[in-house]
């Protein structure tokens, strides 16, 4: 087969992207665990680890650019490179969202908010990301569409959780009408909770983005892209 060197470079790119994805997933799961248990040190690890992910992102971006400039990929190969380009951006954003989660944990001694089942909700989003990366690795377009479907469920769950948080807040405010027992901690906890839920929903959206790019990469279809 001709262009051995070029083929190797393409393979190396996809491997590196998958490796970055695994790292990002790892951090995300760590952040979820830290949120659940209130483990400050774990949170610290996640926050510190964001640098490494950013560096990987830049390196992979350069790898994509080099491939385009030096090898002039066309057709399917070009779609691999342009899709990978976008996917690493989504991965980097997921890592940032994980860092947000960790931030909240570090600030609060306790867990995020009693209404927020971090592991369950976050876990769903995490699975979506995992599946999206698996689809990238194996070019599984069926899985891509399945992920898009699950996002609807995740969004609904997030919305319910948000409602729950606000109801709790309203209930607390109603119960403590006198100023002395109102220390504003309920407010902080609620806002953190809302932000966390939004972040988790965002992770789900990024997972759908990744799946959409994979579908484009394999089938040249912009069905899931918007």
């Amino acid at each position: 087969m001709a262009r051995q060197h070029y083929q190797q470079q393409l393979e190396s790119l996809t491997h590196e992207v998958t490796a970055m994805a695994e790292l990002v997933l790892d951090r995300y799961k760590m952040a979820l665990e830290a949120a659940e248990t209130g483990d400050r040190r774990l949170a610290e690890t996640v926050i510190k680890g964001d640098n490494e992910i950013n560096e990987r992102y830049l390196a992979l971006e350069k790898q994509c650019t080099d491939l385009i400039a030096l090898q002039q990929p066309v057709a399917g190969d070009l779609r691999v490179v342009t899709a990978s380009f976008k996917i690493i951006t989504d991965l980097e954003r997921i890592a940032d969202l994980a860092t947000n989660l960790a931030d909240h944990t570090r600030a609060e001694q306790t867990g995020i908010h009693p209404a927020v089942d971090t592991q369950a909700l976050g876990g769903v989003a995490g699975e979506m990301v995992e599946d999206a990366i698996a689809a990238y690795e194996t070019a599984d377009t069926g899985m891509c569409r399945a992920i898009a479907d699950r996002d609807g469920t995740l969004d609904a769950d997030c919305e319910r959780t948000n409602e729950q948080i606000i109801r709790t807040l309203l209930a607390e405010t109603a119960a403590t009408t006198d100023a002395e027992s109102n220390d504003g901690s309920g407010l902080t906890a609620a806002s953190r909770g809302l932000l966390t839920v939004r972040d988790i929903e965002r992770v789900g959206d990024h997972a759908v983005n990744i799946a959409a790019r994979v579908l484009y990469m394999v089938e040249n279809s912009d069905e899931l892209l918007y």
Partner: protein
Amino acid sequence: MATDTSDSLITTDVSSTETGRGKVPDETVVASSNLDVYYGTDQALEDVSIEIPEHKVTAIIGPSGCGKSTFLRCINRMNDQIPACTVDGELRFHSTDVYDEAVDPVALRRKIGMVFQKPNPFPKSIYDNVAYGLRVQGKAVTDEIVEEALRGAALWDEVSDQLEESGLELSGGQQQRLCIARAIAPDPEVILMDEPASALDPVATSKIEDLIADLADEYTVVIVTHNMQQAARISDKTAVFLTGGRLVEFDDTQKVFENPQHQRVEDYITGKFG
């Protein structure tokens, strides 16, 4: 990763090209049906059917020996020069079968010009080179026509003060543009180009490429090239011939290079073979 549809030919009945030239249906100027060409017993082209649109740049690409130049030379019957060459099937220029008994190849070549791979100006002055076509065709030779042809070939500015000098004194790139001027001076309809830039350096090549885009406004350009990036850069439509002389895909250039229909074409343009 392209999906593999049937191995039949992709031609659209009314083709239209989605380029900057607008989305009007194309007039076909050269068309072939089931064209078979043999050199002796070797088959160079097999069952080629294609409709080449007017006023567009159509590129023909493919690996060595896939019959691209053979096809080009059939259009203006330059293959007649090769005694061992036999042609079956139909090749039409507008509505006339060019291989019909009644067709005079000389008359055909007065409507279809050709530029070759290696620049081949005559050992005459630049002026006489450009005027040659007009003279042999019995057309009037005026300074204006010569100037227009040289301008059309983006050569006027460089040689306007040395028209009496020998054409052989020019650089390779200039010689090729002189050959283009010679081809367009008698105002043909179609210009065939057989790898016109492959013998030239990158700067000369890009001058020729810019020129080709402009030529399509006046003429129909059919260009054979082994340089895929060149085809991608300058053509509106691309035809991909593969080994064995089969036309495997013919579509808008952008589609061929971003999402070809056939796996073999994808493999070829991504460099996996050929």
